[in-house]
């Protein structure tokens, strides 16, 4: 029996009069790939933002490995072992690929400002150690040859991979991916699917993703939850979701016909 890594307990988010997410509860177990689907504006990204600390839920609690993390600052949550990517890839466009990855190490920086200013041995030691680790990480996701490219110079598909690599640099146990396949063609999407699977195994991760591409979600995820108008209407294995009448009515339509 594997441990529950993330538990959302009746999360609710209201913006003014609008309820974006209502009573959202899920449990994600270690080492699984969990998918969240639903129409645009159903509150998927809002749910993500609450979990990562970018939004403070109006009601409800979030537990990470049993620890209540509701309302913690995003950088605290990152250091606990949770990392995310964004819907529209958000790299640091003027930094190199390697530097992008290095920012992920920042929260566990082992030297302080004085070390940096005085250039102490500690600075050199950890700076080169970070660079080695960063290269090793890029190596393992097969991006090492792009290390010195500026992030903005890479093609779309690779930028997504760099964004995932950057998230991996924070040393996450749980990786949240917000529509990773958005804007990709079938070939790139397939590629990304293998990439995520590979990364998950290599880094021993749990993955929680939002996606629209049904093929992608159905093939990759072990459990899928469906959100509609801020409310979870279904949760289950891909085949259960595919045949769930309520999901078909609200979301899928008659795609199997």
């Amino acid at each position, binding site marked *: 029996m594997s441990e529950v890594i993330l538990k959302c307990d009746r999360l609710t988010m209201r913006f003014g009069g*609008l309820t974006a997410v209502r009573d959202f509860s899920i449990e994600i177990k270690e080492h699984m790939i969990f998918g969240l689907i*639903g*129409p*645009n*504006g*159903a509150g998927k990204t809002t749910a993500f933002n609450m979990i990562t600390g970018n939004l403070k839920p109006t009601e409800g609690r979030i537990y990470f490995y049993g620890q209540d993390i509701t309302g913690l600052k995003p950088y605290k949550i990152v250091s606990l072992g949770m990392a995310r990517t964004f819907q529209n890839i958000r790299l640091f466009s003027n930094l190199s690929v390697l530097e992008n990855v290095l920012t992920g190490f920042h929260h566990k920086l082992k030297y302080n400002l004085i070390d940096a200013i005085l250039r102490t041995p500690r600075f050199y030691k950890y700076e080169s150690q970070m660079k080695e680790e960063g290269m090793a990480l890029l190596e393992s996701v097969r991006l090492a040859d792009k290390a010195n490219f500026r992030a903005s110079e890479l*093609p*779309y598909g690779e930028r997504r991979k760099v964004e995932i690599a950057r998230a991996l640099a924070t040393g996450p146990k749980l990786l949240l991916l917000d*529509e990773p396949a*958005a*804007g*990709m*063609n*079938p*070939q*790139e*999407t*397939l590629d990304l699917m293998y990439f995520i699977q590979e990364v998950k195994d290599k880094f021993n991760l749990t993955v929680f993703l939002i996606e*629209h591409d*049904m*093929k992608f979600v159905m093939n990759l995820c072990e459990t899928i939850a469906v959100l509609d*108008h801020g409310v979870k209407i279904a949760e289950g294995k891909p085949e259960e979701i595919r045949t769930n009448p309520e999901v*078909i009515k*609200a*979301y*899928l*339509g*008659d*795609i199997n016909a």
Partner: protein
Amino acid sequence: MLEVKNLNVFYGVIHAVKGISFSVPDGKIVTLIGANGAGKSSTLKAIAGLVRPKGSILFKGKEINKLPAHEITKLGIALVPEGRRVFVNLTILENLRMGGFNKKLSELEPLYEKMFELFPILKERAYQKAGTLSGGEQQMLAIARALMSEPELLMLDEPSLGLAPLIVAEVFDILKELNNQGRTILLVEQNAAQALKLADYGYVLENGTIALEGEASGLLENDEVRKRYLGED
């Protein structure tokens, strides 16, 4: 109706569209498909006058390449932009009013009626802010807004983007219906399967050039297309 010849679009040093030529005949649905970054959106933006291209764009025999965007709209071309881009802080009625910006007041009333007939959901919520609509409803509004200028050519940029499969089917049904009413449509899509099922003629864009073109039904059968754009093995 639309004749594009040797179109080039540059963003600084990036050459996004490299000398493509295609045409959209009266009353037909033509689709441009291709991967992200293939130059599909840039082509639409160039036609709409949002980016300054090199080459020639003839609309009903008139060169529109050098015209500002708002003049092009007045000539009868409307664009439903990628990501819908409805005016979230305006009501639905005001959004429609924006679409018919250059219409006389007397012309507006019947047009509203027409839109509400086509999209009943909009009527129910005419005085609500567009920001309160769901993604699918916003897409409907974006199409209705474009139709308010009574365009002869309707251009749509990735109308299926980010929508539930259910809604995508609905949107494509509406496009079919509009076409049946005689509207000429230029459709840009990544969802190649559905776009080709709908369209009469298709062009496949790759890295800013046209890699393939032909009758949509023929493209659907094409092995290359099936493999690369329909995700079939």
